[in-house]
């Protein structure tokens, strides 16, 4: 294939397709951009000139939206849940994944299939017993009652990921460490776990995003408004305030979407790479 110096190597067809894709991309992010046009206006200005640039940068819609759903409290709760989910998902997953990769025998094989089953159980299936169990044990309406369940539904998947990651590491490393007299657990924590850092970074990001985004489990397990996560607050906002006061609605949408957007801008390469790696594994 000839290398030409032009940025568009294929001429008009490339320019045409690229422009088309750019337009499509604009349509795709439009719902995230347009709220910016509405959010800084008064209701009056919005109803007369919804599509013009705002005359002044009015901030009161943001503070209204902030107060209406107590976003500060929501952020704190969601953050606790997400961190809790990470702390309780990763260690069980990397410990089990290591065993399944490196200590293969009949018993661990059976154990592996038991964990694999968990990967196919949708949370919806066990919603009722989970709810009953958490109410009976006073775990419902606690943040840890929520993230423990999230961890349970994350562990099978991450065990699979860690298993395939540890399987890919060369055997000689562990053998050498074992010959030097390191115990099983020392070999794991000193040598193998640090080598699994790529998988761990991936897990950190994706577990965080998953816990941050959860709706169904939070909806069932949290009824105390003070404990509501961001997504539950957004849901209450949708129920309580219609779209009639659009500027405030748009402000709330911006505030609610912002944490994910920031995280995405910072980590989009990792997130996409990790998602594909996870999907291709299956």
């Amino acid at each position, binding site marked *: 294939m000839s290398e030409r110096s032009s940025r568009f190597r294929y001429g008009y067809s490339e320019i045409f397709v690229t422009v088309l894709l750019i337009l499509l991309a604009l349509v795709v992010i439009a719902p995230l951009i347009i709220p910016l046009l509405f959010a800084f206006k008064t209701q009056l200005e919005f109803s007369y000139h919804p599509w013009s640039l705002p005359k002044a940068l009015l901030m009161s819609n943001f503070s209204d939206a902030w107060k209406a759903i107590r976003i500060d409290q929501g952020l704190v709760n969601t953050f606790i849940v997400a961190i809790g989910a990470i702390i309780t998902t990763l260690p069980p997953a990397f410990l089990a994944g290591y065993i399944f990769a490196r200590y293969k025998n009949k018993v661990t094989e059976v154990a592996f299939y038991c964990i694999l089953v968990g990967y196919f159980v949708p949370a919806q299936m066990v919603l009722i017993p989970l709810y*009953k169990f958490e109410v009976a044990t006073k775990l419902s309406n606690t943040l840890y009652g929520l993230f423990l369940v999230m961890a349970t539904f994350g562990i099978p998947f991450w065990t699979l990921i860690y298993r395939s990651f540890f399987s890919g590491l060369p055997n000689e490393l562990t053998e050498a460490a074992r010959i030097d007299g390191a115990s099983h657990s020392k070999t794991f924590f000193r040598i193998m776990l640090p080598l699994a850092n790529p998988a761990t970074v991936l897990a950190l990001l994706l577990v965080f995003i998953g816990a941050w985004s959860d709706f169904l489990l939070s909806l069932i397990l949290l009824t105390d408004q003070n404990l509501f996560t961001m997504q539950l607050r957004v849901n209450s906002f949708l129920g309580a305030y219609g779209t009639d006061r659009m500027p405030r609605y748009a402000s709330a949408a911006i505030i609610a979407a912002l944490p994910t957007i920031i995280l995405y801008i910072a980590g989009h390469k990792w997130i996409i790479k990790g998602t594909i790696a996870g999907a291709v594994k299956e």
Partner: protein
Amino acid sequence: MSREPKPKAHGVRDPKKGPFIFLFLLPAFLFLIVFMYYPIEETVRLSLTKTTGMGSGVFVGLENYQKLFLSEEFHQGLWHVFTWAFWSCIIQIPLAFLVAFGLTYYGNKLTGPLRSIFYLSNVMPSAIIAMLGKFIFAPRYGIISSLSSAIGWKWLGSIDYLGDPRLAFWSLFAVATWAYTGFPIIYLMARIEQIPRELREAAELDGASAWRYARSVVLPDLNYPIRILAVLSTVGSIKLFDLPKMMTAGGPGFSTVTLGITLYNQGFVNWNYGSASAIGVIIFVLSLLFTVIQFTVGNREGKPI
């Protein structure tokens, strides 16, 4: 457990190995036993009992299932879930293929940024997607209504996209297409990028057009990933809950009811645990069925996934 025969793993007999394996597997199993295995057993048991409170209830056999199969809400839920799955495969996957092919065929400086933009809405929490979906389709002030009023198309602005029972389902579907086509795009892109360069060069030497290359080289290679995507969207549709719950609450009427919504309504609105658990079992069986199909398809293909 420590008495297992030793294969090649470490050569020498090691009495510490058994306890070590046990300790390392323990945390994962503690989680799964308490929050998954036990609840699974309970779901099955509850689905066979009649209970409304905290009492243990009476065994009624398959009565809950029978009642479900006769209820309008369940029929609608089942119908919507599979209609949703069908149209996801018909619309979202071909769309994703076109975008993925366009982005990879002319790999230039914009490919990376565009891929990131297409995937952005996929990492958004469903609550935000629902919020933005309402923002798009709201009557009077929503994007579509106010934009079409601004350019004078009053008829388009006066449609109630989420309140009209004939339209609500399709409005939700449009929101999902907007929000979730990014995953098939990046997945197919990753697959297309794995196609050896030589094939592309050979096609170009033969004077094959982009379209011809897409049809004769790329598409056959994507046969398997596309089927995987079809299974994934079907399983996803079976579990559909968040968007209809937040945007229309299953309404108006039963027009956007899904299996998940029916489960929620039975369990947490009517407090009918037996019926809700029966739906849970049905959701599990259906999604397992399609996952098994995925694996058998995968095996027949003989490819490591």
